[in-house]
């Protein structure tokens, strides 16, 4: 498989996943605000923090209110992390390699961007925001499903899976980082009942609430949710699971040693983390460490497989 083709597959999967994750995050945050009393509302600024786009946001908008944040994250062409930009990037990556993927998948990717852009064009405020976001999530999952069901699970598919899994790990770690800290205000003042709601929303941001209930025999609370999102081996958006996915792809490729080493280090860090004693500040530091390793892993994959040069 050509490096260029593998790279496009990798990025296509990342962008599809990013669009889906962002849509889910916005949607769940909307629901959360409705569930919280006015004095405990976390507002919309945390989403800017999660997506790491505060400087750009401040340049483009005055206040981090609902209207602005939602516009920025969904349809703002100037925001490289917006849903619409992610979908367009996914489409552009797919377009240059469309002959190697099943026709239906290409049509779905192209159509997903088309309908998303069309609706934004009609009304910036999106009166049916919830439905719109749901259609993005469904559309993205249809792409994933079509590719899983109609594309040969060859080397190219492995790059797609790696892109998707790395993007998932990234989003899960970002959500943990922000939600566990800045987002949840001081827990005093009789707000305790709402803590559960907030942690539930963290799970829901990652589509994890139901699976948590099925597999974790504990009430919804900080330690167990973190434990689940970081260490669960079976939940598809848990960091540990995603790392396993990436490793399973790498073992089929040559020259994988350095990348696999990084995964091993990440895995060990995740399993060694003692969440009972990990205070917020140290949790952030821990997640930052994971993020750095994710960056290294991406660089290693890109270096090894996408930027092939003359043999020594």
């Amino acid at each position: 498989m050509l490096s260029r083709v593998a790279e496009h597959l990798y990025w296509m999967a990342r962008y599809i996943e990013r669009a889906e994750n962002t849509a889910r995050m916005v949607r769940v945050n909307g629901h959360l605000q409705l569930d919280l009393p006015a004095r405990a509302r976390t507002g919309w600024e945390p989403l800017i923090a999660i997506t790491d786009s505060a400087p750009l946001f401040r340049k483009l908008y005055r206040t981090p209110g609902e209207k602005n944040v939602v516009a920025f994250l969904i349809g703002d062409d100037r925001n490289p992390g917006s849903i619409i930009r992610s979908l367009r990037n996914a489409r552009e990556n797919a377009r240059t390699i469309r002959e190697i993927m099943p026709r239906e998948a290409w049509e779905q990717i192209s159509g997903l961007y088309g309908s998303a852009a069309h609706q934004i064009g009609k009304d910036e405020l999106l009166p049916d925001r919830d439905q719109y976001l749901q259609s993005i999530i469904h559309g993205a999952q249809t792409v994933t499903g079509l590719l899983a069901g109609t594309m040969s699970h060859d080397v190219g598919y492995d790059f797609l899976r790696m892109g998707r899994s790395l993007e998932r790990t990234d989003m899960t770690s970002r959500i943990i980082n922000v939600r566990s800290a800045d987002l949840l205000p001081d827990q005093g003042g009789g707000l305790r009942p709402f803590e559960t709601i907030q942690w539930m929303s963290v799970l829901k941001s990652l589509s994890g609430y139901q699976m948590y209930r099925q597999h974790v025999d504990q009430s919804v609370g900080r330690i167990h949710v973190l434990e689940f999102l970081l260490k669960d081996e079976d939940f598809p958006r848990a960091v540990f699971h995603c790392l396993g996915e990436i490793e399973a792809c790498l073992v089929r490729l040559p020259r994988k040693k350095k990348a696999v080493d990084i995964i091993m280090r990440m895995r060990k860090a995740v399993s060694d983390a003692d969440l009972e004693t990990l205070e917020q500040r140290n949790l952030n530091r821990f997640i930052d460490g994971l993020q750095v390793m994710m960056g290294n892993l991406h660089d290693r994959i890109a270096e090894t497989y996408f930027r092939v040069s003359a043999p020594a």
Partner: protein
Amino acid sequence: MTIRWREYPAAGVYDELVAPGGRLRAAAKMLGQRLSKLSDDAIRQRKAAADLAIQTMGITFTVYSQKQGGSIDRAWPFDIIPRVIPKREWDRVEEGLRQRVKALNLFIDDIYHQQKIVKDKVFPADVLAKSRNFRPQCVGIDPPLGVWAHICGSDLVRDKDGTFYVLEDNLRVPSGVSYMLENRQVMKRVFPGLFENYNILPVDDYASQLLDMLVSVAPKTTKRPEVVVLTPGIYNSAYFEHAYLAQQMGAELVQGSDLFVDKKDRVFMRTVRGAERVQVIYRRIDDLFLDPEAFNPESTLGVPGLMRAWKKGTVTLVNAPGAGVADDKVVYAYVPQMIRYYLDQDAIIPNVPTFRCMEAGDRAHVLANLDKLVVKPANESGGYGMLIGPQASKKERESFARKIKADPREYIGQPMLTLSTVPTLVDSHVEPRHVDLRPFILSGREVSVTAGGLTRVALVKGSTVVNSSQGGGSKDTWIVDETGDG
């Protein structure tokens, strides 16, 4: 009963299916009779079935559109009535094409070596001196088997009396063959019954013949050469074809950035398994964009160092750089002389009579007859920059006269031919529409010619412009063997 051949207007022009008076030509008889038994609805159904097949097969061509801010893929316009040519007629054409390409390859090889044809004064030195497609970088190079133009697409037309003429030879990166293949697939879906009753020569073996040819011209040292198709990318109008042929041959479809040349002048492609050697490149990029080191330094489509590798013989480029020297409308005029010079034969397929404006007598004739002739620039393709005298305004003709006088080497004049027609579906009845034909000739260890080729049809009434970007479509082309029991 919608098609009545007796009422079909086939006078004053050679129609390939219907003789004057509405009599079906022998090879087209069965087809014509079948068609005339179809009801309006049945015809519409076939047409719809063909459109659907084209859509589901994803047969498209790319048009650049400024308005839509990019390129768009359009469905390939296809007419369901095939063009029928009897095999015994075609055999002669095929022989003529083999002869022609053989002479062209000898000419190109001679031009980049001793230039005997120039020294013997058969081919004028100043035509060569002003050739835009002569590449000094190619002088002295010996491509494997002495073949330069591995893939040639010659455009043929038939005049009023049915005689085939060569209109031009495309020796750089001729395109269209994928449409020829897809047209046949569509026809098999739409009219399966007809294929049972006719002996129609197959075209589907093109991709395997192409691969055989590419392998046969690989550098000598390689046992199992890696063959790739080099495309400028998705925005090229023929990208569909590049992808199609790569897929049919099981070859990688690469872009310039996928390849690199190492210090030992070897070509590699970047794959997830590492760098892999490449020995044969079927390139669909023009010479000047092939290698920024040797040609246009601005080119991002090509591969730096590719010419070094080619000259050293570690890789074969198909077609060879510089092959376009014979793809020039002034050079074209000398092909009959080349055939005589190199092969000591008369040209089997004639050229369209051509007046070379560089010669005083010819120039005077062209200038005096601008209202009757077609004037073409020597180095353009795709019908660009032409003057169609009878249809041009006085102003256009005067402006052309000035251009010819300023740079006579760059222009030729040809009489206006009445291109042959083939019945073409218009709603649910048929009307004659003008066609041309582009067969493809492959030259490697062996020479093979497609059975027929791509028939392009001007869908606009009276028009002779067959280009798909300008209202042209295409038809399946049947070479029919009547000697069999079909």
